[in-house]
């Protein structure tokens, strides 16, 4: 059974209440064929544990790294991934699409 976005947000709350640093990453925009729809979530804790998906596995590693940093600073981040964005990121989406992901620390 796949975790739904509802399960993921509930888990984010449990993690935060348990005293863990938590950030929620959300797909806020997609161009072309993107593996996960706008609104999809990945929740990350300060140790890099994560649940959910923003890309079906293509860019989760990079999002987790950025999220750990955002948990540290308390500031949100906007990340863009995709084959059209070669200079900023080495990680491409195999499907050829592009996604924008916002990382929001839970304060």
């Amino acid at each position: 059974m796949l975790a739904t976005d509802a399960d993921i947000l509930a888990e984010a709350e449990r993690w935060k209440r348990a005293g863990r640093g938590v950030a929620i990453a959300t797909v806020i925009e997609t161009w072309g064929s993107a593996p996960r729809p706008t609104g999809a979530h990945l929740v990350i804790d300060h140790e890099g544990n994560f649940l959910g998906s923003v890309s079906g596995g293509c860019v989760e590693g990079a999002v987790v790294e950025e999220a750990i940093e955002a948990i540290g600073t308390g500031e949100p981040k906007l990340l863009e991934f995709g084959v059209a964005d070669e200079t900023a990121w080495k990680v491409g989406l195999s499907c050829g699409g592009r996604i924008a992901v916002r990382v929001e620390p839970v304060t």
Partner: protein
Amino acid sequence: MNLDQLAALNRCIAGRVPVAAVTALDAGLEPGDRVVILTPEDVSGQYYAEALLEAFRTGRSGIHEAAGRRYFFNVHLPPVKLVITGAVHISQALAEIARVIDLDCTIIDPRTAFATAGRFPLTRVIAEWPERALPALALDRYTAFVALTHDPKIDDPGLDAALRAGCFYVGALGSRKTHAKRVERLTAAGLPVAAVARIRAPVGLDLGAANPAEIAVAIAAEIIAAMREKRRAPAEAAER
């Protein structure tokens, strides 16, 4: 987002209340000002009220501009429930389809010979009269209700509750003649004519379905069409 906002969002989702997390995307805001959690009742007064209400209607999350600022609307609508009266042959197929298309399915039938776990190994089956079973199921506008027993003693109370709860889809099995009698009974029982007219009968899209499994496909297709009504292009909707 802070923990209180996350908790408010989760309370709405768990309670099947439509809710949106609205994030201001422009830099420079304090954490507490970046995100607001809104239900459709809280929307009025916001610059983006109209766009957000439209997002609630379509269920689509996305970026919107209002008053020179950019906002991301993340809309959470309750997952669709399917409630069926009648643990019959069509329900066996419909319950399977519901599982595949991710509808949360419950079957009610007081006839214990029909309502068995053996006939419905993967579906919640309640061997009770609808009057007893329905209150706990909390029918709402994100529920599809289908009456399949052919027995007014079982189907009518279910239809009555579904129409009063504003279920987005209400269907009932039976010939036109059977349905005409059903309309008479429900109207006589005090339901408004307009409410009774919402019952889809004959139930299901007209596929020429020839057996119970095919009728189940026709019903599932009609439920999907009703679910996606707002998503479909206006021209398509007008043609129907």
